[in-house]
């Protein structure tokens, strides 16, 4: 099955517990669900506030899926795995039978 590349950007604030758990949760979802076909950028808004400004990020952690379209935005530590997958709108395509 030919798949488009999945492009994800995660915005976090420093190395707080919440940031770390969001990163861990996302990595786990990606590796089990998307295999090798994804690109993940992690942006620390404390180091790069201008990137947060560009994307108008208010809350952290924030996840933005830019590819495949449509763009989707998630907020939180991504602990609700099912909801994350559902909201990313990738889950449905993958399990399409």
């Amino acid at each position: 099955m030919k798949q488009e590349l999945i492009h994800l950007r995660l915005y976090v604030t420093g190395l707080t517990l919440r940031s770390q758990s969001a990163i861990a949760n996302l990595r786990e979802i990606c590796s089990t669900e998307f295999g090798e076909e994804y690109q993940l950028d992690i942006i620390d808004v404390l180091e790069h506030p201008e990137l947060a400004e560009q994307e108008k990020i208010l809350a952290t952690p924030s996840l933005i899926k830019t590819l495949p379209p449509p763009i989707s935005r998630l907020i939180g530590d991504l602990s609700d795995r099912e909801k994350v997958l559902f909201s990313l709108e990738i889950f449905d395509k993958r399990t399409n039978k």
Partner: protein
Amino acid sequence: MTENRQIQKILTGIPGFDHISSGGLPEGRTTLVSGTAGSAKTIFAVQFLAEGIRKYGENCVFVTFEERVEDIRRNMQSFGWDIERWEAEGKWAFVDASPSADESPVIVGPYDLGALMARIEYAIKKTGAKRVSLDSLGAIFNQFSDSSNIRQELFRIASTLKKLKVTAVLTSERTNEYGEIARFGIEEFVADNVIILRNILEEEKRRRTMEILKYRGTFHHKGEYPFIVQTDNGIILLPLSAIELKQKSSNIRITSGSDDLDRMCGGGFFRDSIILVSGATGTGKTLMATEFMAGGAAKKERCLLLAFEESREQLFRNATGWGIDFEKMETDGLLKVICKYPEVAGLEDHLHRIKQEIDAFQPNRVAIDSLSALERVSTFKTFREFIIGLTAYIKQKEIAGLFTATTTSLMGGSSITEGHISTITDSIILLRYVELMGEMRRGLTVLKMRGSMHEKEIREFNIDMEGMHIGRPFRDVSGIISGRAHQLTNGEIDRLGNLFIDNQ
């Protein structure tokens, strides 16, 4: 937490506000500005920053939760605030936290507003901002459903702003003009200073007021102060009740424009006095205002006539009919005539414009014809404040003001206007119709002349091609002022005369 150091304030530059707040906003602190929809919160928030750049060279950051950045840039242009230029010059930075048109984000687990805080901090450092406005907080509660979490996050932002030593304005909505301070309990975390903006509908007229509700640890004037929002200027407060009675008063007399009247007043009006001319329609009030102007111009004084009842053409024609050449006075630069319909603006706006005209023309005397026309467009409270504000301003300028007021009844009676302002005026002149022997005649009396002797008689006066001529006192007539004039018969006069004869 103890703080022995006195709280410093920074001047906002918002006209009038620095007066009622005794020096501006508390420095390095956060002030909540709360108001209903359309109460000029955003204008306050922007003006605080704009004046900072224009008047005090202080850079700033504007955080918008509600309006889009492009809209703010465009809307504020009409007040003369060129935000785009300031942005290019690095003096102004936006932090855009307004809701995006895209779908709202899905919440998957706990979160905070760390990114917003990082962006605000970044913008403050980038511009070296001293002033920050956040407008308006209620909108962020609509973006995120978890109110208690957001409240806590905003509290963190407020305390970070304090740490960064910026002076901040936070705006928030309220649902009622007189009710809880702000929605979502916002005031609880920025409760140091609270300003309320009101936009009250009173007798079908909008009235804007500002009240400093709380200014922790520092002095401010109490109560509601009316303000206007003006194109080119933004918010302008009219701190009427804060005016101090410290005008100087002089003994210099000026002419009323009529020698006869000057004589009745004991040598003319005082230079910095307020004169009220009251009378029914057609008794000669506009004539008195006209002669007051002509008398000034003849002495090379600058005269300002503000007319709210008649058009320019009418006034000039009237003046010509009384032998006064307004046009020449105007070409000589001694007269300025401004005609306006009272309905074109609220009274607060009128007051502000009148002040501007006085500042621009620098007259020695001002006449307003008539106050009653202005009263028509206002509520009692607004009108009283208008009069107080106007008289205080005129006195402060040490010039003379002559106001006319129309009585409602043809014979006798007093005008509503008169009742409101008689204590504020220095002199009152009554013009009355007198019905005698089936004929309408006109009477004039000086009712009050603060600080001077004046005639107590009621004199007849005539109006002809040369203006006003004051004649002899009405003899043997009583009841003129009350509007029930009757001629005393000879028998009566003798009887009255005998009453006071010393029999012993």
